[in-house]
């Protein structure tokens, strides 16, 4: 229970008057202090009876649109609250949000309600970040009058529920046989073709007459057509790394980053070059748009998607396999030296851990997705826009994959090259091309 300022003043006056009555031995002072004391007690008794009446009148019916969702997908919650409020008090109902759930949008608290019978509907969207069965734990009721304020947690069985089942979003790829047949069939027809002739072949029904090589056809007395090479565009790939919603980040730097990305996209599209855009948040892929010319679509994505995002998965400073292999080699070299027993034991333990880790060939989902993206969209440059905050294992993974695909990888960050001095964790990006935002 909390005392309002009015009550605190009255209690202070009561204490002063009663102390004065004790010291000065005046019945008048005692009577005055007793009157304040009785006033407070009477008001509390009234408040308590109204509180009980309001709490007993609360009824809650909570529904969710999906009882089974995937980790990171949103779902809508609707809560119908009915309560009857006595005269002299005001009440507010607020939903209690279970751990592992983020509120995306909507209202979770009613405005202060005065006397009468109220039916309120609270509608909000949630994103579960952890997997499992999540029980909605109920709500809280705040009742106040000019003297007192208290809140009661409504977590009895009739106020809780329903249960939201959250399926985990896998971190590792499924292991299984890959296709045994090499090559991927594609039905892509390129609109433009080049000038070089790739090959000649016999005429098939529906071939374009303009591509018939008459000279060759006359020579062989059969119709032959020319097949030209196709022209292909290598759109630059822009990867934007959104900061973690749970962590603090520099909002000015993030605004600067968004501004730089918007300017880059607008400038490139004005030159008639298409762009591919990939939005990630740590090792989580949020959204993508490939080989697009429409500025309006990009601006819509920037407006709707470029905000701090919930990171379902984290890499926790994952080390590259090559680094682990180097460490393993160093350990084996150190084993040859004579050392104390506990040092030898420690090295042997590390050796086992690294060895088992290397034997585990599972790739995480992020690595596999990035690998597929890089192989499907052919590009010659990747610009990576990020604040480089926190763990940067995924940045190193992106850099490794681009090196493997022989694509130039540039990191663009507000601090530029100074990021290495400012953030110790970025020391490992020393060999990368790091630029400031233009």
């Amino acid at each position, binding site marked *: 229970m909390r005392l309002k300022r009015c009550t605190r003043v009255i209690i202070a006056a009561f204490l002063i008057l009663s102390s004065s009555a004790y010291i000065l031995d005046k*019945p*008048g002072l005692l*009577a*005055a202090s007793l009157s304040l*004391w009785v006033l407070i007690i009477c008001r509390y008794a009234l408040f308590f009876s109204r509180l009980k009446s309001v*709490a007993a009148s609360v009824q809650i019916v909570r529904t969710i649109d999906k009882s089974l969702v995937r980790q990171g997908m949103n779902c809508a919650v609707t809560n119908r609250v009915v309560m009857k409020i006595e005269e002299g008090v005001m009440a507010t109902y607020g939903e209690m949000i279970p751990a592992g759930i983020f509120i995306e949008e909507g209202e979770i608290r009613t405005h202060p309600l005065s006397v009468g019978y109220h039916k309120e509907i609270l509608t909000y969207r949630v994103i579960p970040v952890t997997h499992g069965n999540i029980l909605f734990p109920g709500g809280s*009721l705040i009742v106040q009058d000019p003297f007192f304020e208290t809140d*009661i947690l409504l977590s009895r069985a009739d106020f809780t529920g329903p249960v939201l089942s959250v399926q985990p979003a896998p971190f590792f790829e499924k292991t299984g046989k890959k296709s045994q047949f090499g090559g991927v069939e594609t039905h892509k027809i390129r609109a433009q073709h080049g000038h070089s002739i790739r090959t000649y072949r016999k005429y098939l029904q529906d071939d374009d007459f303009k591509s018939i090589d008459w000279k060759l056809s006359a020579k062989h007395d059969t119709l032959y057509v020319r097949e030209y090479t196709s022209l292909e565009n290598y759109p630059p790939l822009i990867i934007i790394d959104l900061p973690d919603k749970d962590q603090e980040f520099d909002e000015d730097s993030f605004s600067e980053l968004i501004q730089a990305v918007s300017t880059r996209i607008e400038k490139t599209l004005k030159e008639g070059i298409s762009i591919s855009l990939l939005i990630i948040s740590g090792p989580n892929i949020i959204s993508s748009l490939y080989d697009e010319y429409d500025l309006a679509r990009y601006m819509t994505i920037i407006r709707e998607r470029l905000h701090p995002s919930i990171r379902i998965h984290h890499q926790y400073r994952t080390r590259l396999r090559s680094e682990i292999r180097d460490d393993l080699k160093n350990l084996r070299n150190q084993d040859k030296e004579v050392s104390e027993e506990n040092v030898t034991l420690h090295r042997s333990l590390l050796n086992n851990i690294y060895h088992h880790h290397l034997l585990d060939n599972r790739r995480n989902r992020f690595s596999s997705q990035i690998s597929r993206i890089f192989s499907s969209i052919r590009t010659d440059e990747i610009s990576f826009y990020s604040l480089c905050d926190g763990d940067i294992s995924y940045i190193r993974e992106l850099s490794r994959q681009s090196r493997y695909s022989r694509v130039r990888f540039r990191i663009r960050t507000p601090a530029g090259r100074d990021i290495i001095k400012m953030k110790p964790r970025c020391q490992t990006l020393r060999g990368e091309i790091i630029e400031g935002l233009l």
Partner: protein
Amino acid sequence: MNRFSICLGLFIAIMLLSMVLSPVWYLNPPLIGIFLYIWHAAKTRTELIPVLLICGEISCITAWYASPWFAWIIQFSVIGLFLFRLNFSDSRLERISFITLYGALALITFLTDQINHTVILVILMFFTSVVVILFVLVSEFRLRREYKGEIS
């Protein structure tokens, strides 16, 4: 005449009457003036409402010198003005609360008029306050537990 006018009129009348009998009569006019000023200011600045009550209680103490029952009537008017200013409604529960409060104040006035020394009573009052606070805490705790589902 509305309830505010009645209470205010009662306050001024009793304070003026107590000037005749009270040895500290010179305190009454400034107290009336301060009270009226705070009453007027509290119409726009609600933070002065508790100050109005405190000023009223000080007026009761000065009226006590004339007669304890003058003090009781002044408490009646001052507490009434305080509660009316807080816009409490005229419900049955409020009326019962008023009657209980004023009945208790009358009893307190009668009993304190009979005593000469206040020392033991002040100690008794503090002790009772502690008991009341414990009772309040336990009641609230039980209510919270009931809605948490720990007790049926």
